[in-house]
């Protein structure tokens, strides 16, 4: 019980420290402004080939684009928060302060990771909620599975938090940000190519009707963290479409396994770190 209370205390400290950063509110303000800017897209009367488009369909597609944009904002926010969470503790004496108390390094890591994840997830979920309510009120449509898709993206944030916390213990601030962003970038390129190739539009254009889909991804693409694929899986939930996975492991499991693995390495590293 005492162990859990120390983890909860560290979670509370982490959230409170992050909320004192001006950059948190600056980032949130920029994202909210971008969401508000989307209001115009919902209301515009689009005309294609002389025919007025269905307003609800436009709102639905706009909301889907907003879902992806918010998920990417969430990733960026998680990168920034996680990259400084442990570094800040080292620099301002908080790590020594906490670990001079009867707190194990495992609980310290758990508290920092959970706290950073909560703040990043709350950031993304609030923006997704804004998209949900704007679609409902301004666009007149509903996206009942948007909160579920947002939860799926939350697994991505757990992965990002573990990755950047780990990198921040080994690399300088900019280097860890660049290395982590490269991992996520490769995922977006690889998974996006896969998603486009397997989209119904491309499939119908490339393949004769009735011929089976062929799958030819190299092993490293199958094993790479499926950050973007998990986001596309969330989108498929919203759209109610079938989701084609790359390889035998579902992106949810892939990203969750990576998050657990990275957390284990982080604890291993922190256990050996000198303060």
């Amino acid at each position, binding site marked *: 019980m*005492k162990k859990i*209370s*120390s983890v909860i*205390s560290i979670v*509370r*400290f982490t959230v409170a*420290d992050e909320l*004192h950063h001006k950059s948190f509110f600056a980032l949130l303000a920029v994202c909210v402004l971008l969401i508000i800017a989307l209001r115009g897209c919902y209301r515009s009367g689009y005309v294609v080939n002389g025919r007025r488009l269905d307003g609800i369909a436009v709102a639905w597609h706009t909301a889907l684009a907003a879902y992806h944009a918010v998920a990417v904002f969430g990733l960026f926010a998680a990168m920034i928060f996680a990259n400084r969470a442990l570094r800040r503790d080292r620099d*301002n*004496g*908080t790590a*020594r*302060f*906490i*670990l*001079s*108390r*009867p*707190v*194990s390094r495992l609980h310290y890591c758990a508290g920092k990771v959970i706290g950073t994840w909560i703040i990043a997830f709350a950031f993304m979920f609030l923006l997704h909620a804004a998209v949900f309510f704007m679609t409902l009120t301004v666009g007149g449509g509903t996206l009942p599975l948007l909160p579920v898709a947002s939860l799926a993206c939350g697994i991505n944030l757990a992965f990002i938090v573990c990755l950047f916390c780990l990198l921040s213990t080994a690399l300088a601030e900019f280097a860890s940000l660049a290395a982590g962003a490269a991992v996520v970038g490769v995922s977006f390129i690889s998974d996006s190519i896969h998603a486009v190739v397997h989209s119904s539009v491309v499939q119908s254009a490339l393949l004769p009707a009735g011929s089976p889909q062929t799958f030819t991804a190299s092993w490293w693409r199958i094993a790479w963290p499926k950050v973007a694929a998990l986001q596309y899986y969330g989108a498929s939930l919203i759209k109610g479409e079938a989701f084609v996975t790359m390889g035998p492991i579902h992106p949810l499991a892939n990203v969750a396994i990576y998050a657990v693995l990275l957390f284990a390495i982080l604890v291993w590293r922190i256990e050996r770190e*000198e*303060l």
Partner: protein
Amino acid sequence: MTPIVFEHATKRYGGITAVDAVSLHIEEGEFCALLGPNGAGKTTCIKMLLDFTRPTSGNVFLDGLPSTAPPARSHVGYLCENFLIPPHLSARAYLKRAAALCGMSGASAARRIDFLLELVGMKDRCASPARTYSKGMVQRTGLAAALVNAPKILLLDEPVSGLDPIGIRDVRRVLEGLKPDRVTVLLSSHLLSEAEKVCTTAAIINRGKLALRESMENLLEKGGSLEDIFMQTVQAP
């Protein structure tokens, strides 16, 4: 049970031996001054006690437990050298955090925090953010945080560094107040005159080795001041 035990504790950083087979027992209620020139290994000894760094060989025990076990720190207070407080936190918020990590909450924690803020003279500024504090105020808050759980063992690394004479006197007064409670204190300091006034024993570390371990009374009976004995010890070939 001896609260602080070093058994042939050695710490090497690559080819450099920071602490060399130090064996030291500090008994309950003892106020031990850990003295030595810069780089002698004083801070490394304190870090080994708190599991901030692990000995390359030998053993370190705190409160009867191996120093690597978190419960060993249950009744320990610690004030580090160059102590810092996150700039947005007030002294009260910082002490609340310290109390929460020690499993204290509610009215008893609030009473203890009020008492400590009064004790270290931070009552008037306890709501201001730490970015507005002087070095001395930060140090006083750190001392209060070290005492929040009414520790049985107090580890102080340069507790008076940066303090003015009034602050130094106040810290001495606080430490003297712990003597009736039989708190064990390990105080690392460069201020020999302060160590002489507060501590009951002294351990001098030189080039990582324990060079001298004696009660303050015996040391001073040998003649001269602690400073003279310190200089003789560290300058010995």
